[in-house]
């Protein structure tokens, strides 16, 4: 049987509801667009809600570049109860009395968790150690040593009051962090710093980069979110490490052959910098990366992508 060639290319920015896994979102969009190749940037836990960026067709080749964007989250830290998963979906594994917790103390601890910090990934996570996913090992009751990883907490805002939930103090948080940060771990570490334990609940990813829930042009429900062009998505990455350039037909022909280029649209460029390359019809044809002396293809699209 001949497989249907990918015919739908582009991105969908979804506001994932609670109860759906990131994989469910992908499956639903696969049916909606009748497109086999679908991938997403950065798993959101089933209980969590918020922004998920999904790529379809040839745009799946570009999703890797969106994965590195900073992410913003809101959530609630419940103090006095530790759980097996670090969030509300797990079983309570330890409790302590933190009823006299003050907001000032939480803020001071949050400040210590701001900036570049080291974080030990949770046991219940999709990370692989020795070829096995950590959550598989955890399900069998096992626990393995995990190396701490550097992450950056750009912003860690603590809510205006300490609320109560079943006698446990609860504080709202608003965090902007680098890709790869576990907010659950941040909550658990906050509890630890305050001499007790804590877990996270009601996690909502408010934004990936510029893509925000609630704003006019942003995340919508899985069935309503419009397909966006690769060009307009990738141009949101314009910044210090990535620029968008369009090239003439001669250069586009060289790029189609995967040739390295001595210059590319904008003079200069530091090693490692990326260029999103458009043709004269402003369709995306390639991503190039600056090597020590020239520009080398990182991704060349099989066909120009509108």
């Amino acid at each position, binding site marked *: 049987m001949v497989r249907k060639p990918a015919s739908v290319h582009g991105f969908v920015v979804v506001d994932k509801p609670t109860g759906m896994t990131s994989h469910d979102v992908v499956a639903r969009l696969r049916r909606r667009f009748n497109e086999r190749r679908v991938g997403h940037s950065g798993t959101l836990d089933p209980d969590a809600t918020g922004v998920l960026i999904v790529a379809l067709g040839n745009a799946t080749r570009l999703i890797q570049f969106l994965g590195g964007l900073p992410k913003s989250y809101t959530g609630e830290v419940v103090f006095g109860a530790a759980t097996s998963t670090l969030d509300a979906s797990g079983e309570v594994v330890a409790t302590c009395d933190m009823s006299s917790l003050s907001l000032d103390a939480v803020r001071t601890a949050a400040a210590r968790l701001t900036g570049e910090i080291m974080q030990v990934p949770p046991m219940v996570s999709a990370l692989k150690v020795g070829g096995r996913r950590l959550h598989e090992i955890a399900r069998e009751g096992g626990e393995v040593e995990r190396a701490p990883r550097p992450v950056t907490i750009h912003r860690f805002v603590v809510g205006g009051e300490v609320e109560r939930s079943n006698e446990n103090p609860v504080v709202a948080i608003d965090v902007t962090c680098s890709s790869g940060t576990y907010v659950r771990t941040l909550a658990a570490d906050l509890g630890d710093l305050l001499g007790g334990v804590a877990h996270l609940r009601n996690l909502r990813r408010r934004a990936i980069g510029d893509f925000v829930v609630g704003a006019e042009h942003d995340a919508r429900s899985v069935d309503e979110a419009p397909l966006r062009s690769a*060009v307009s998505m990738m141009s949101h990455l314009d910044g210090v490490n990535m620029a968008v350039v369009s090239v003439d037909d001669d250069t586009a022909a060289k790029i189609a052959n995967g040739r390295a280029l001595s210059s590319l649209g904008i*003079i200069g460029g530091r090693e490692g910098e990326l260029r999103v390359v458009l043709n004269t019809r402003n369709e995306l044809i390639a991503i190039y990366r600056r090597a020590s002396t020239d520009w080398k293809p990182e991704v060349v699209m099989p066909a120009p992508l509108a």
Partner: protein
Amino acid sequence: MKIVGAALRNSVVDAIGDRRCVVTIGAYDGVHLGHRAVIAQVRARAGELGAASVVVTFDRHPASVVRPESAPKLLTDPAQKLELLESTGVDATLVVPFDAAASTEAPADFVRRVLVDALAVRGVIVGEDFHFGHKRGGNVALLREMSAQHDFEVVPLRLVARADGVDEPVSSTAIRRALAGGDVKRASAMLGRDHEVRGTVGKGDQRGRTIGFPTANVEVDPATCLPADGVYAARAVLPDGKRHDAAVNLGRRPTFHDRADHSLLEAHLLDFAGDLYGKQLRVSFVLFLRSERKFAGVDDLRAQLQHDVAHARAALQ
């Protein structure tokens, strides 16, 4: 302030005479291909009924009154919108003032005042999801309810999207989203023309002149929707109607980095020598050329601008 129906009718009486009217109603920002398709239906139905075709719109975007904090940036200024509506061949455009008082008008009152009293409405053609009046309380159902008493027909139009959901319906929101991503080609495809902004040429920092690339600093109303920052191939129209190809830079003022701040539009007109200061310029965006960048020195900047101009020239051929 609410203008009574008779006075509203006076504003369009030259065009509609004593005819009844087939109307469509909306903000009509952009007058894009979706709008044009609706207007074509209004004209066709008006022709069949011997009625006048009329677009009912507002003197400002209703959202700028109802929710100013999140009002969309405009694809067309009021004058441009009227010109574009006129070019559709519609008999008249009725511009209804929309201020705080008008925004609280009950939907049924709006129908009586604007559609019945002013236009002796014979037919209303609107999208099936059309809402109007205080708190968006008016809809197709309400129009139907009132249609028997006032003897007019209501034709709701389905917003057509491809069944697979690939193409969302052409909408002002979709066009703004494309522009926000620098995708002016896609915006053009939905508008049926290139996105055009207008402004008066003010005093720039004159930096371009010293390196051989004089630019006109076009002061655009902050309510205008501009494409993403970057360098574009564009076309500029002078007040005398002369057209010039141009390379346009959209970027932030160096001292402000807040995203909410409005970008500065600098146009370098190709094959043009002269003073544009104080003149009204129209700029339409044809093609995205590159992201905006700061350059280490004047030599790099000059070389880059040479490249941009050659690129713009080729792209606009």
